[in-house]
């Protein structure tokens, strides 16, 4: 029987109560640790890898429809200004222009915030749209608008905003115990001020959408992490029923948190398509993408720690000024200070400073990465003050239970991560790296702890249909943004069905199937969707076994299904599964499954440890990461091949925070100076260190039926801190701001 159950849903540390459907007859339980599995936990290449490697897959940016118009966006050239005039007639007069929409144009959509503005509050904010037969004509139309703008005062430095009490939301002040008194009484204290840089997502496929109307039915290809939220947003904006909107998101060329919901592009494309009666394409050019495509906020944090001589943490007093830009959710920068270590006296303040920048945007482990980057450097300073091994200090302050709620963790293998990372990195011999080196470089090693959520939750659904050929079609609500979750879905389904991988086809990326999956964010796809798939597959398996019992005239209990074969325990029957399924004829075995609720009374987190080894050339200020060891406890690993890819990707983006990536803003104009890929330095293949990866790979038995947690965010969390700590170990100096550019390193070392 299916029931409604009220449960808590978590996304990136935000909890909400939701009603979810629970199938009470679903009796699938987690695989036990010693259970032998054919496919889960074994490396498998992506099911769509060959198509991707041949350039055959179509991203939103590749969608071409007959009669499709192209769009150019007039964006603010200044950080704050007021439009004096736009020559709309001149834009209309450009041959090929089919629509001109300015901030005053009456639109058919309604959105919370206006799509366009006459008073831009950051450089790159959209002011007007021109749709035309060609992109060249649209660009010419934007030029013809002849924007005349009054420049208004801007504020870029978040400290200026704090001084003037300009906040996007009220500052938050969270405390337990008495941090101030505990600091005053502590035997050893340290204080550290640190800045973390603003980082751009820089997905190679820019934000984009193509929209087309058929009467009151809207179809939109959207480069998004959340096709269902895009559907909901579009339906609301245009006053449509959700089943009148179809969102297609089969392939996404990178997202990293920046592509949420419909986004500006899909709303603009749908509006322009409605106005013109033609399909419309809105895709960012690179400059727009780097200006307005997403930004991890710059933070300035102060961490004060107090401890006993034996390293026991007595007080954590932390605050963060976050350059929010024009708004956005205040990411949990202070969560690491509140949760990573056992500590009874904690105070954590967050100041969400309103600056003339684009609203900050979730970027892979938003907030927690920034918080860990500061906290973990402070922990190393404390270790130094205590003359204690930094890893030992972390072990001594291990949190046995969640420090905010007091609840136990559903599972936690952090101490095992420390041990394994230390072993793989050669941690015991780390001080030998500081001996004079033949190549004249300084070397050092540093560690950092990772925390993130990643437990997922309902709602998530899946359907499985098995046909006469013994082939299963698995329909999911997954949008695979490059993580390989659809391949993971195929593995879980095939495992449960007892089929070979190539007998299972997985589908996602299309809301028309109306099989819901969550937004691909917060490391929630795997822990949310895989259990739903397994539940659906388990029902099909059950039916298939019953039919096999009928065919072979044997009790179901005496049969097993594995690797595409039906076998009896006594060995008398060993038949290809098609000997049963072929009798289905045109019929199919169908089932749907849904994600069960999360366990009550537990907090679900992921944990890990990374150890970085760096070399520093003091002459030219060059820091190179030579090696990173990454050990992450994310429950059961479904596909070790794609799991290691996630870790490598997260490590490299985290390395970029430490070494090269930062938004550079001209303080005079408030305009970003490096909104291009040649001057915003994302890592290249030549920057890549050796990355050594391991997982405890212990399924979380408190999570429904698969025991896997998410892995998208965890690997980025500790990397920058580990590198910064290795730099301090190598040089004896700590930079108060990242990234460790050559100029900054030379300054720190001089």
């Amino acid at each position, binding site marked *: 029987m299916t029931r409604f159950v009220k449960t808590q849903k978590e996304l990136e540390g935000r909890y909400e109560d939701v009603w979810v459907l629970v199938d009470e007859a679903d009796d699938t339980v987690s695989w036990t640790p010693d259970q032998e599995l054919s496919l889960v936990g074994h490396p498998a290449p992506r099911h769509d890898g060959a198509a991707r*490697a041949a*350039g055959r897959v179509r991203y939103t940016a590749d969608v071409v429809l007959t009669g499709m118009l192209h769009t150019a966006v007039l964006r603010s050239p200044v950080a704050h200004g007021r439009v004096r005039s736009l020559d709309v007639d001149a834009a209309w007069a450009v041959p090929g222009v089919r629509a001109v929409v300015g901030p005053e144009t009456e639109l058919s959509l309604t959105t919370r915030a206006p799509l366009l503005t006459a008073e831009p509050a950051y450089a790159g904010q959209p002011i007007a749209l021109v749709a035309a037969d060609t992109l060249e004509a649209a660009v010419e139309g934007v030029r013809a608008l002849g924007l005349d703008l009054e420049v208004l005062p801007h504020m870029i430095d978040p400290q200026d905003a704090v001084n003037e009490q300009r906040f996007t939301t009220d500052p938050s002040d969270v405390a337990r115990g008495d941090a101030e008194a505990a600091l005053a009484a502590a035997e050893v204290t340290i204080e550290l001020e640190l800045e973390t840089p603003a980082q751009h997502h820089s997905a190679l496929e820019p934000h984009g959408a193509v929209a087309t109307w058929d009467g009151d039915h809207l179809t939109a290809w959207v480069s998004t992490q959340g096709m269902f939220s895009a559907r909901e947003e579009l339906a609301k904006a245009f006053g449509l029923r959700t089943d009148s909107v179809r969102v297609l998101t089969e392939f996404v060329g*990178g997202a990293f948190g920046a592509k949420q919901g419909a986004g500006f592009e899909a709303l603009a494309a749908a509006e322009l398509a409605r106005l013109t009666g033609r399909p419309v394409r809105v895709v960012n050019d690179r400059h727009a993408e780097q200006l307005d495509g997403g930004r991890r906020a710059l933070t300035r944090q102060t961490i004060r720690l107090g401890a006993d001589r034996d390293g026991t943490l007595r007080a954590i007093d932390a605050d963060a000024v976050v350059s929010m830009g024009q708004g956005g959710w205040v990411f949990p920068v202070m969560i690491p200070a509140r949760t990573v270590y056992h500590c009874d006296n904690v105070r954590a303040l967050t100041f969400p400073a309103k600056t003339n920048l684009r609203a900050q945007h979730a970027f892979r482990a938003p907030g927690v990465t920034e918080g860990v980057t500061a906290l973990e450097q402070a922990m190393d300073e404390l270790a130094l003050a205590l003359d204690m091994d930094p890893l030992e200090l972390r072990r001594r302050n291990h949190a046995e239970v969640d420090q905010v709620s007091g609840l136990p963790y559903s599972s936690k293998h952090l101490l095992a991560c420390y041990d394994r990372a230390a072993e793989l990195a050669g941690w015991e011999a780390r001080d030998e790296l500081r001996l004079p080196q033949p190549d004249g470089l300084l070397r050092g090693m540093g560690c950092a702890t990772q925390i993130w959520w990643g437990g997922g939750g309902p709602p998530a659904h899946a359907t499985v249909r098995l046909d006469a050929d013994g082939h299963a079609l698995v329909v999911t609500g997954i949008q695979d943004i*490059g993580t390989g979750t659809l391949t993971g879905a195929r593995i879980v389904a095939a495992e449960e069905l007892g089929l070979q991988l190539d007998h299972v086809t997985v589908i996602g990326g299309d809301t028309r199937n109306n099989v819901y999956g969550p937004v691909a964010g917060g490391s929630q796809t795997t822990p949310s969707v895989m259990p739903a798939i397994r539940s659906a597959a388990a029902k099909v398996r059950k039916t298939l076994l019953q039919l096999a019992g009928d065919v072979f005239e044997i009790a179901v209990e005496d049969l097993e299904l594995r690797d595409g074969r039906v076998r009896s325990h006594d060995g008398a029957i060993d038949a290809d599964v098609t000997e049963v399924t072929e009798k289905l004829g045109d019929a199919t075995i169908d089932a749907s499954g849904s994600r069960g609720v999360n366990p009550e009374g537990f907090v679900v987190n992921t944990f890990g440890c990374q150890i970085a080894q760096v070399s520093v050339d003091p002459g030219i200020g060059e820091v190179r990461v030579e090696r990173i060891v990454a050990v992450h406890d994310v429950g059961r690993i479904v596909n070790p091949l794609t799991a290691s*890819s996630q870790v490598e990707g997260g490590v490299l983006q985290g390395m970029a925070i430490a070494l090269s990536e930062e938004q550079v803003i001209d303080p005079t104009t408030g305009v970003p100076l490096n909104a291009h890929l*040649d001057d915003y330095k994302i890592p290249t293949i030549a920057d890549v260190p050796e990355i050594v990866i391991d997982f405890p790979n212990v399924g979380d038995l408190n999570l429904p039926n698969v025991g896997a947690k998410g892995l998208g965010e965890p690997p980025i969390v500790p990397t920058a801190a580990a590198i910064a700590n290795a730099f301090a170990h190598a040089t004896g100096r700590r930079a108060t701001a990242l990234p460790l550019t050559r100029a900054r390193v030379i300054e720190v070392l001089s």
Partner: protein
Amino acid sequence: MSFTLLVNGEQHQVSPAGRRLLAVLRDDLELLGTKLACGEGACGACAVLVDGKPVNSCLLLADAAEGHEIVTIEGLSRGRAGALQEAFVAEDALQCGYCTPGQIVSATALLERTPQPSREQIHEAMAGNLCRCGAYPKIERAILRAAGVS
């Protein structure tokens, strides 16, 4: 003014002149495997082979490519890059896959020039192909695998 382009072994009449090769490949010839990511020559997603050398097609005027042999990812996928593509899949040297056609193009040029590349040669040849997902460690392994170097 129209001109002739030799793409993947076929002659194409193209007009007008004055456009970027990338635009002609994608918009006129519908060869959508070549990706536009930066349009500024900074990322390599639009790489194609011109007379066997990898070139950012966003920085080359199409008419300047007249008389030269252009091969895109579609052309390479008829067998010429088969070993590399199989290695990319086997090693998981791609995540979102958006940069992958450009990576395959550059890696093809590398291996045709240097069949047994060192890691340093791979880094030098491939440093112009950005991968934001960070598939680099596996791209290196895939190239070594395709080259038969372990």
